[in-house]
């Protein structure tokens, strides 16, 4: 999978369909995966941070945008789309597991 960047495509040659697909894949992964990881992290930290309930919610919510930006940058910095997807899954899965353990999905 070509990496987005000037080495994969020069300004004067038309991008190949494979390159375009790879870019689209990263954009979708960054937007949806980034939001999913941030949302899961917010939901989990709001439950488990050792502070009063409202303070935990505020802390988790204020930090959520930094989480999403970090995931987006990591998705575009990864060497391949597959690695980027593995990273997003590797973050989302334990967060979702933690939320399940914390009982967020019960009722």
């Amino acid at each position, binding site marked *: 999978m070509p*990496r*987005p*960047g*000037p*080495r994969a495509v*020069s*300004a004067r040659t038309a991008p190949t369909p494979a390159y375009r697909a790879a870019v689209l894949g990263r954009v979708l992964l960054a937007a949806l995966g980034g939001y999913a990881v*941030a*949302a*899961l992290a*917010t*939901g*989990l*930290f*709001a*439950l488990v941070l050792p*502070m*009063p*309930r*409202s*303070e*935990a*919610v*505020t*802390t*988790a*919510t*204020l930090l*959520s*945008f*930094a989480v*999403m*930006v970090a995931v*987006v*940058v990591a998705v*575009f*910095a990864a*060497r391949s789309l597959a690695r980027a997807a593995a990273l997003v899954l590797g973050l989302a899965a334990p967060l979702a597991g933690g*939320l399940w353990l*914390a009982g*967020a999905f019960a009722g």
Partner: protein
Amino acid sequence: MRQGFRHAMAWLHAWSGLVVGWVLFAVFVTGTASFYRAGITQWMRPELVAIEADPGRAADLGAAYLRRQMPDAMGWFIALPTPEKPAISVMWWKSMEGPFHEALLDPATGEPTRARETRGGDFLYRFHYELSMPPTLGRWIVGACTLVMLVALISGIVTHRRIFADFFTFRRGAKSAQRGWLDAHNVAGVLGLPFHLMIAYTGLTLLATLYMPWGVRTAYKGDEIRYFVEAGLMPELRWTAGRPGTLAPLGPIVAAAMARGGEVPEGLSVWNPGDVNAAVVAIFEEPHGLSHHHAQIAFDGQTGAVLGTNGAVGPATGTGTVMAGLHMGHFAGPVLRLLLVLCGLMGAATVATGLVLWAVARAPKGAAPAGFGLLLVRALNLGTIAGLPAGIAAYFLANRLLPVGLSERASFEVGAFFGVWVLVALYAVLRPGPRAWTQALGLVGALYLAVPPVAALTGGLSQPGGALRFLGFDLWMLALGLGFVFAARKAAARAGAPLRRPVRGMTGEEALRA
């Protein structure tokens, strides 16, 4: 590896910045104008002059008017007169989904003022985060663009090998236009970087529970009101009982609020005014300092007894209210406010130079025709960077030129804003080329320079408060007008010069790394 990382970040910076650039430019410009929201509104309603008004009587006049409009409302809001806004401003609504009705009342009579109908600075303020769209849609679009802006900032910082040296680099006599645009983009971007990071992040956190409701969802099962009450952001309120009641006079409640709060409240919200469980909440101005946290006292709407107050906020929520305060800048006096406005203009300049740089760096060599993508970017660049400021100038001019008694007057003002913007954008599409920049920027300059004389000739010389009442506004219009005329002259001088050094063409990514 390091080199590859930098490549990827340069690519990310160039493309993420381009995709959201036009929206961000509009958000930056209207947001910067919103630092002067009250001043713009005053200028747009010159008929309103400061008068001495009794706050208790103003509250009762507001309630009397609202009782005639919607006795069974879910909520009323009565903003008490201030020297900046010498009128009673009322809102009423049947549901939190809206519509929210508004009126401006004369503090002497309690009837709608005779001031010209206008949305004033509030229009630019709302456009800043809703883009004149349905509120939720507009807020999501602005939020998504703001997040991409943060991504562009981070990748832009990483891209700079020598960010500190670039701080002091501006090759004014540079041989190629591209180098000059790059340096201008770096100066505006790096110099204003702390402001840009702060304003983007705090913009997101202002609407955090809209964008990221998942913490409230898991910890409060989605009960946002309970979260706000526990966090100390609002007092505990009561639900409607479903039985009709009589709202107590508001004058004594205002007096009680003043006794308890130590100052005149900014306004009163009345929940379920026609119900036995009616509640009146006195909202005070935020205390001196950074934090945007209004003290509130809730009263029983039937008896006037105190129901409770919003508590103190904890460290995390306090951090959030300070972030909100930083974004809105209510704490800033005239000098600091000017600095914030200059930072905002620098943000708009960063976006504008970045957009232009993207197009300049991809200009075809020699006689090769520009592709569709490049033509589109060029048209959107001119259409936005000249079109939006032209629209704002037209909005101000329409405020003075439209007849005062015209019905639907406020919509015509907004129509002038969008109409002139669209005309400039169409011109950019129909008449592309270097000359178009000179002409469009010249037009914008002329529109701003026209504002003070037009205001003077349409009653400004004999207005209440004297001809110099809006000197600050006039000076801003002159400064903006001269700035755009200067830019038009620069564009004219550049129109003949080569856009890029022909020997060594750089792509945007290469230019960023250079």
